[in-house]
């Protein structure tokens, strides 16, 4: 095998052809320096070129900012930055508002995830049980809700819920009621919009998954005397597991990081910040209060929480013997 595959080994074939841009395939020369870079690294190079400077570096900077004193004077370059260690973190963690925002972020995300999954899964199963037209209608409606940008969804629902000319008040006979005034009702309304946006992904993914299960497998089980519940638990569920995992983890990620809907619908976090979630809280601290380092510390904490979720996820994948 040529030197091209010292660290890399193609799964198949033992005469690796050189990647595009390398020496012509089959040339009998000693491979040049470029050709000695393993093929997979060539393939990963474009991704690295984008991700390292635009994702990795800012992430590192976020961590760095969080241990500096960095406000407007430092940002405009007038005042030198100062290393302050973990004092931003102690400020954040010592602030009662942070804990209440964290609590409501977790509760809000959990509520959205569970509702999204419940609605999405129910609709997916429903799709397999209905006639052609109802199925197409539900698919079409869901695609519409999925396609609607977060911004659009927020504005439309805001209009539906509008105090004076909103349809919801007209239908319920509650004219003049402001749904965004009360903390919990405001959260609930944003949750409705979040679920409306995200249940279609769950529904369509799971429906596609159910469709991909061969009928013969289900029929064979039925012939063997398995009931609907057994078929669901012993056949459908295990086969859908990889998709379920994707759907759950995506929902957690999306709902924990909701920004647009909260920001737009509650006007930047609600009356006196009652509807803040961590993402918006960090944004407000950084760009409105111009305390960039404090915002960065909140961002780091939020990342750590999500990484903890990821770690649990990867461990459960590993434990179930799934290969990454």
């Amino acid at each position, binding site marked *: 095998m040529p030197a091209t595959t010292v660290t890399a*080994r193609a799964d198949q074939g033992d005469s690796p052809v050189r990647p595009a841009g390398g020496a012509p395939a089959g040339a009998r020369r000693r491979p040049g320096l470029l050709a000695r870079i393993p093929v997979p690294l060539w393939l*990963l190079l474009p991704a690295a070129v984008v991700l390292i400077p635009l994702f990795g570096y*800012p992430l590192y900077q976020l961590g760095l900012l969080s241990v500096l004193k960095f406000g407007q004077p430092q940002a405009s370059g007038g005042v030198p930055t100062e290393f302050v260690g973990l004092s931003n973190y102690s400020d954040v963690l010592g602030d009662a508002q942070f804990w209440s925002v964290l609590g409501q972020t977790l509760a809000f995300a959990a509520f959205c995830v569970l509702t999204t999954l419940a609605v999405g899964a129910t609709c997916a199963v429903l799709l397999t049980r209905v006639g052609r037209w109802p199925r197409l*209608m539900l698919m079409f409606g869901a695609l519409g809700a999925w396609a609607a940008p977060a911004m659009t969804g927020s504005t439309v629902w805001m209009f539906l819920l509008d105090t004076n000319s909103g349809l919801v008040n007209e239908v319920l006979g509650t004219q003049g009621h402001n749904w965004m005034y009360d903390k919990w009702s405001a959260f609930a309304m944003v949750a409705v919009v979040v679920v409306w946006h995200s249940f279609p992904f769950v529904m*369509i993914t799971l*429906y596609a998954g159910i469709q991909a299960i061969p009928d013969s497998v289900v029929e064979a089980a039925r012939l063997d005397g398995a009931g609907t519940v057994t078929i669901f638990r012993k056949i459908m569920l295990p086969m859908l597991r990889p998709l379920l995992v994707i759907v759950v983890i995506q929902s957690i990620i999306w709902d924990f990081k909701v920004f*647009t809907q909260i920001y737009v619908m509650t006007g930047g976090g609600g009356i006196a910040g009652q509807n803040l979630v961590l993402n918006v809280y960090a944004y407000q601290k950084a760009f409105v209060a111009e305390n960039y380092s404090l915002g960065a510390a909140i*961002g780091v904490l939020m990342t750590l929480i*999500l990484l903890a979720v990821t770690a649990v996820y990867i461990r459960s994948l590993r434990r179930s013997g799934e290969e990454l």
Partner: protein
Amino acid sequence: MLRQGANAVAVVLALLTVFPLYWMVLSALKPKGEITSAHPRPWTFAPTLENFRNALGVSGFGRYFLNSLAVAVVVVVVSAAIAFLAAVALSRFRFRFRTTILIMFLVAQMVPVEALTIPLFFLVRDIGSVAPGFGLSSLGSLMLVNLAFSLPFAVWMLRGFVAAVPESLEEAARIDGASRFTILWRILFPLVAPGLAATSVFSFITAWNDFVFAKTLILDTDHQTLPAALMVFFKPDENDWGGIMAASTLMTVPVLVFFVLVQRHMVSGLGGAVKD
């Protein structure tokens, strides 16, 4: 009986789901006086394009639209190409650090990218002094940033699709003397097309939806994209709901068109992920 009940439930759910969109389009077509009525009706007798005309007239809404479109199209195309190559590397080769790289892609999806607005603001500001096309208030910066944030998910998702393509096909092509490049573009690429369709939906939505980066990185009005530009319709005293609904409608149409174009591939594509 049961079937009929299920049908009815599905129809009701479908109507509920689509209703906000119907209301958006309807309200966009309502004349000025009717839209602020305290007793809104689910129909209108005097549909008008006035709101659309106003929306398009407001400080170059058409321009914002084109800005958004440019960003989204570039992000979709470039991210599909890059993600494809990376997905091939991660599912067709075994190499050192492969698992580490995979985990990094997964981890990237967890990062609350909104938190990265803070360092990115300063990074983009600094880039701007060297390459103005990618500095603050440039579409280039939005393209790059959205590209970076749609890539990890695209790679992660596409990996499953590449893995689902039988390797024997590539083997056969190799025996026929196809080069690695030919195998990539002529054989693997078309076979992964459904997966690419599914992933490009996510890239498109990421770029088209982006609100926070457009809001923080674009400081002038000329280069604003739709989500942030829509905020101009919100006024402290009285929201111009007609304008907001017309603008929202215009903003939703491209995504719908995109969905319809790739929809068929998407459902089959998502189903393919199961086999993975």
